[in-house]
């Protein structure tokens, strides 16, 4: 079970930051290929985001899986909404959907 404080911290982070990536490692030093792939997409698109390293925080690592009902990391949140993991982000990037989605949410992004 995830306790309330972990859930509150997640809610706070995804409310305070327009784009949040829960990932393994940091944006500069990703520790997993799937996290690195999403960092690379966001960086290529010039999207500013906050990376949260789940390896540095076991409570968040478990908590975010329960919060999103999603079993894997990375997980991307935009304006408090769960957008997807690596496969979905990659698919949306490749078919051009991601740029439109970000722009619609008021996030500057280039294709």
């Amino acid at each position, binding site marked *: 079970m995830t306790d309330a404080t972990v859930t509150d911290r997640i809610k706070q982070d995804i409310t305070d930051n327009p784009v949040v990536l829960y990932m393994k490692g940091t944006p500069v030093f990703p520790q997993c290929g*799937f996290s690195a792939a999403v960092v690379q997409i966001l960086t290529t698109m010039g999207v500013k985001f906050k990376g949260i390293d789940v390896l540095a925080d076991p409570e968040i690592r478990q908590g975010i*899986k329960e919060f999103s*009902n*999603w*079993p*894997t990391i990375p997980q991307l949140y935009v304006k408090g909404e*769960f*957008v*997807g*993991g*690596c*496969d*979905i982000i990659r*698919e949306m990037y490749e078919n051009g959907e991601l740029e439109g989605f970000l722009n619609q949410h008021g996030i500057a992004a280039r294709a």
Partner: protein
Amino acid sequence: MAIDAGEIERLIKAGLPDAQVRIDDLRGDGDHYAAIVISAAFKGKSRVQQHQLVYQALQGRMGNELHALALQTSAPQD
């Protein structure tokens, strides 16, 4: 811990009986798979919801025994 492709397919079909499933073992190591899943259950659902249905069918194995399963989901074309 590895899991074999037949077991992944069996679990997905148990959860989504109409599903067409194609599994590729990407590295031949029983640990990195790609799956294409087509099911009428995905109709009208977002991609996140579609993937959640597949993860549900996998009953907690995703992220545990099953480290990497690149998923692509869609509803059948009419």
